């Protein structure tokens, strides 16, 4: 065999091997990411129900319908409200905890593990426990009553006024530990020399935090805010298990409405349009995050 040909054979075999190695990803990407994303666009332009195979092209009417649909607009505003309140609250509390944890205390790992525990427990289980906590005769009302505070006669989740707020509190509670761990790592990577210098200059703790820690920690804060926002835009499980979007759609969110429309009312064409609205919101968040983070590094 001429040597040139053999070299080509080897290269060919190399190519095949590489292809075989990345094949699992290629397959999974094409079947479960690329095809669904492209196919969703098409489904969102049809009146596909999900019950039969009938699919009629209806143009952009699903998107137009979404922005006229009161329930969808309510879901949209609830989701934005949810993100705007829980994300800052979670960030502030977890940053505060992280600062406490890195202030040279003992049993740091124990505390950190304790705070982290809620974030590995599934949202369904967490929801069940909080369903009990928020119930009319539950621990929360018992505590409030013993403090002499008037309590609602129904569960906190059964009233339009308190349901969304109650879910927000639960969400902050369950998420804080995760972001605390991120902040602890961020805080520990900050240069110690600056702190030494500031101490020598006689700066107070608050001054050090405000003028050294916060600016240096900005990338971590931005990162935490953006991944938490993306996660919060997708809030579903708590709503599904606790309220089902009620009472009177006061806890309806984008993803829960998507589920309702697609898998309960079987209007998958419309559901796909809602999915795409969510997709654009999350993409916009991601792009915004990239821009801000890049700007930070420059």
């Amino acid at each position, binding site marked *: 065999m001429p040597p040139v040909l053999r070299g080509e054979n080897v290269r060919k075999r190399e190519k095949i091997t590489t292809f075989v*190695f*990345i094949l699992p990803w290629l397959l*999974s990407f094409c079947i479960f*990411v690329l095809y669904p994303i492209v196919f969703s666009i098409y489904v969102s332009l049809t009146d596909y129900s999900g019950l039969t195979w009938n699919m009629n092209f209806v143009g952009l009417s699903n998107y137009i319908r979404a922005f006229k649909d009161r329930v969808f607009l309510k879901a949209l505003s609830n989701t934005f409200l949810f993100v705007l309140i829980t994300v800052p609250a979670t960030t502030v509390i977890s940053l505060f905890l992280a600062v406490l944890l890195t202030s040279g*205390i003992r049993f740091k790992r124990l*505390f950190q593990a304790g705070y982290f525990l809620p974030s590995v427990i599934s949202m*369904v289980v967490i929801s069940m426990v909080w369903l009990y906590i928020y119930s009319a005769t539950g621990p929360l009302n018992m505590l409030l009553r013993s403090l002499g505070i008037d309590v609602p006669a129904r569960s906190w989740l059964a009233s339009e006024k308190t349901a969304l707020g109650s879910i927000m509190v639960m969400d902050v509670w369950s998420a*804080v530990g995760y972001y605390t761990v991120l902040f602890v790592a961020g805080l520990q990577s900050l240069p110690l020399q600056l702190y030494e210098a500031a101490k020598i200059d006689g700066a107070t703790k608050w001054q050090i935090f405000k003028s050294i820690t916060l600016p240096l920690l900005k990338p971590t804060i931005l990162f935490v805010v953006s991944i938490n926002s993306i996660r919060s835009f997708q809030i579903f499980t708590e709503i599904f298990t606790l309220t089902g979007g009620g009472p009177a759609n006061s806890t309806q969110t984008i993803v829960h409405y998507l589920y309702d429309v697609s898998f309960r009312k079987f209007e998958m064409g419309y559901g796909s349009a809602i999915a795409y609205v969510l*997709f654009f919101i999350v993409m916009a968040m991601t792009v915004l995050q990239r821009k801000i983070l890049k700007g930070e590094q420059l």
Partner: protein
Amino acid sequence: MKLLVYSLLVLFLVISLFPTFLMFSTAFVPEGDLFNRTIEKIVSDFEAPRTVLLTRVRPIGKAFELVREEQNNFARLDPSREVKGLAFSMGSSDINRISHLIFKVRASSALKLSLCFKDIKENVEEFARLLMEPSSQWKTLRVNIDVKKLKLDVLHVSQLRMTIEGDGTLDIDDVTLVNRYPTFYNFVKVLREDYFGRYLLNSTVVSVCSVLGNLFFCSLVAYAFARKHFRMKELFFSIVLATMMIPPQVTIIPTFILMRKLNLINTYWALILPNLVTPFGIFLMRQYFEQLPLELDQAAKIDGAGDFRIFWNVLLPLSKPALSVLGINTFVLTWNDVFYPLILTTSREMRTVQIGLALYQKLNVFTWPTLMAASTIAGLPIIVVFLIFEKRIISGILEGAIKS
């Protein structure tokens, strides 16, 4: 200052752990809830007005003799006047949580007292027979009930019956059934009544397969990204990273349609296949492989090893730390996943434990102790995994987060 810091830390620790504690401890309560436990169920103290009393207690025999003595009402059994016994109505009760019966007696002469349960199918079974000594004082008796030995339908008991044999009278008061506390029965009940055993099996199968699949396939793909050179490698890799950002809800409807066309709804395949190769796994393993020295591969190549041999025999054994991070993270994510299993399974037998729990609460009349027992069943595996692998789980999060 130090004291303030510690007390804040402890306060937050209590807030953070209290719900989990609440779940565990309520799961062992027989009835009621953690703060209002029903341990002693008073069957009757005979203090209610006669008409009310008659709805709960019926005489066995002709009449019902209530006696009042020093502000205290009690019942008198007297075979000579055709009152042979009492039947206490229990509706249709599950008596599995009950540990013993307590009541007060006063016998005028030596008598035999027979204690029975009756179920809704009218089966009567005696669980104790006691010999009463004559006495002028009230005596408190405690009778242990071994539910396992009973042959009647212990889930639907309608009556507790007390009958006497012999001559003389027997006074009875303050009949109380006492629950076992703490009790494991809530777990038994949940596992038996719903399909929680099956749900656990489903979750285990899906999680274990996803973990194994991720460990193998993600490393395989990561090997190509770390060690091979091919066209558009960096483009492909940025696609891998970009897919991490795509919300799973966007892909669910086409995935559902696909699975239905392939007839895979309600199979393990539907739950496992979409999670078999995850971008996070590829990313994590590539990072790890890239910091292993290239000389290792070259030495193996000189020995005549091919790519798969290098991957399997050289790199993988050295990657145990990264593999364990990936394995544990995949397990936690798959075990806790709700959205995909909710949509890709419709039959009860194929539900994972999270869906089973969510629907158990929605579809059943539940009480807090059984709901908390069901929640403990769904949550405990992850809590145990966390307690064992806490360090690796946290480092997995930092790998994924900080580096990206």
